[in-house]
């Protein structure tokens, strides 16, 4: 494998992982907001799977399919109610081959 293959974009890194996606049932949801809080906005760079992004209207959106279930967003955003964070249904989500 060439040197460039070691330094992929996060979406490509996730492509090596094994998931069973629970389509249409995201286990994390961003609550409706006009302006994202500091912590919610921080998730756009802090999420290790790049699940959070900022839309043109300034609101923070989430696509949970590549979620690694680390819980960083739960630590920062759940206590203030900016997101809801559940485990995926049993058997779904990230399935680490090595861990």
């Amino acid at each position, binding site marked *: *494998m060439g*040197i460039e*293959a*070691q*330094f*992929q974009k*996060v979406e490509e*890194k*996730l492509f*090596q*992982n094994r998931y*069973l996606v629970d389509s249409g049932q995201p286990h994390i949801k961003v609550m409706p907001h006009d302006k994202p809080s*500091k*912590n919610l906005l*921080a998730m756009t*760079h*802090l999420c*290790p*799977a*790049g699940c959070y992004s900022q839309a043109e209207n300034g609101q923070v959106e989430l696509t949970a399919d590549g979620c*690694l*279930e*680390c*819980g*960083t967003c*739960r*630590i*920062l955003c*759940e*206590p203030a109610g900016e997101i809801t*964070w*559940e*485990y*995926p*249904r*049993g*058997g779904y*989500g*990230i*399935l*680490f*081959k*090595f*861990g």
Partner: protein
Amino acid sequence: MIEEKFDAIVIGAGMAGNAAAYTMASRGLKVLQLERGEYPGSKNVQGGILYADMLEKIIPEFRDEAPLERRLIEQRFWFMTDKAHTGMHYRNDDFNEERPNRYTIIRSQFDRWFSRQAQEKGAILLCETTALELIRDGHDKVIGVRTDRSGGAIHADVVVLAEGVNGLLGARAELRSVPAADHVALAVKEMHFLPAETIEARFNLKADQGLVIEAAGTISHGMTGMGFIYTNKESISVGIGCIVADFAKNGITPTQLLDNFKKHPSVAPLIAGSEVKEYAAHLIPEGGFKAVPQLFGDGWVICGDAGQFNNAVHKEGSNLAMTSGRLAAEAIFQIKSRREPMTKANLALYKKMLDDSFVMKDLRKYKDMPALLHNSAANLFLTYPELVSKAMENFVRVDGKTKIEKEKDTIRNFRKARGFGLIGDAIRLARAWR
């Protein structure tokens, strides 16, 4: 729906959960273990190092069968600047002993094995089952759990919450709070595959021998954090972790931080040409002694990462998890043997056993360390590595300057650093260590 009532329900099939399930089942208790992943280990991430002593106390003959990667014979500590590392390497032939002290492991394989041992002792394992909430009776005693598998409740005398750093059940039931952002680190890790011979040549190892590199310095961009490199049989685990509160302020992405570490001139040659097969992220409890929550109550105990059991200084988590799981199981067995109920007063025995063990004693020893590392991060991870590197370069590089002149340069640099609080940091560090 499961009609049967169990002696204990264990939430999670990681280190703590498997240790608890194995210990209780092997003493004849009726144990149900719930795991939300497809198989034990499928949700678990670790560097990872296995400490033999703590597993021996549970399964003495584990070396015969357990999936172990390499026995560790060398430890390298690297103090890093952008282009250099100042290292301290410790290698000892005594580590090639008959019963080695530490091994690298791959968690998804190890956890499956450990869980199988518990099942062979009689524990019942239900995978792909997410526990949703604890059930309590009219007196607030925990009497079972509700899962996403069937609407029905599963009942037991005691619930062992070995649900990991994110454990939702305990937090939902307000047995403990969501960990604070300065009490957890986010670590990202990649599995780099290379032929065993290549790994052995690059790291100066023989077959089955392994080593660990722990690296701190400018690689964490002023955040409290560390990089690590672990040799497995045919792969190298490369990762870096920093405190979540620091990450939130810093602005760098975890993947960028990891890629920068991999590109460091001291690291890149070690992993050159590897094939990356997995990218993982996980939280590590870093709050230490002061972050440990209430660990027992009427009908429940907390073990492992869920109890913040991690010794951040020595990078020991899994052995504290295993030991807390084993002690919870032994306490439950003792109470059961006396035919007494699983009340808070009786389960206090678990906490007493923990207090008497290395788990709480080690955590107490370093109780001031997490805050110190966090508060002095800029100095410890940016200023001092540069200082040490400059002193080393000054010592090693031959450029016509007299040695007296060089020595003066180094002393001048250290004097300047006194302005940053070098001496104060040294004293605080010594105190927190003691």
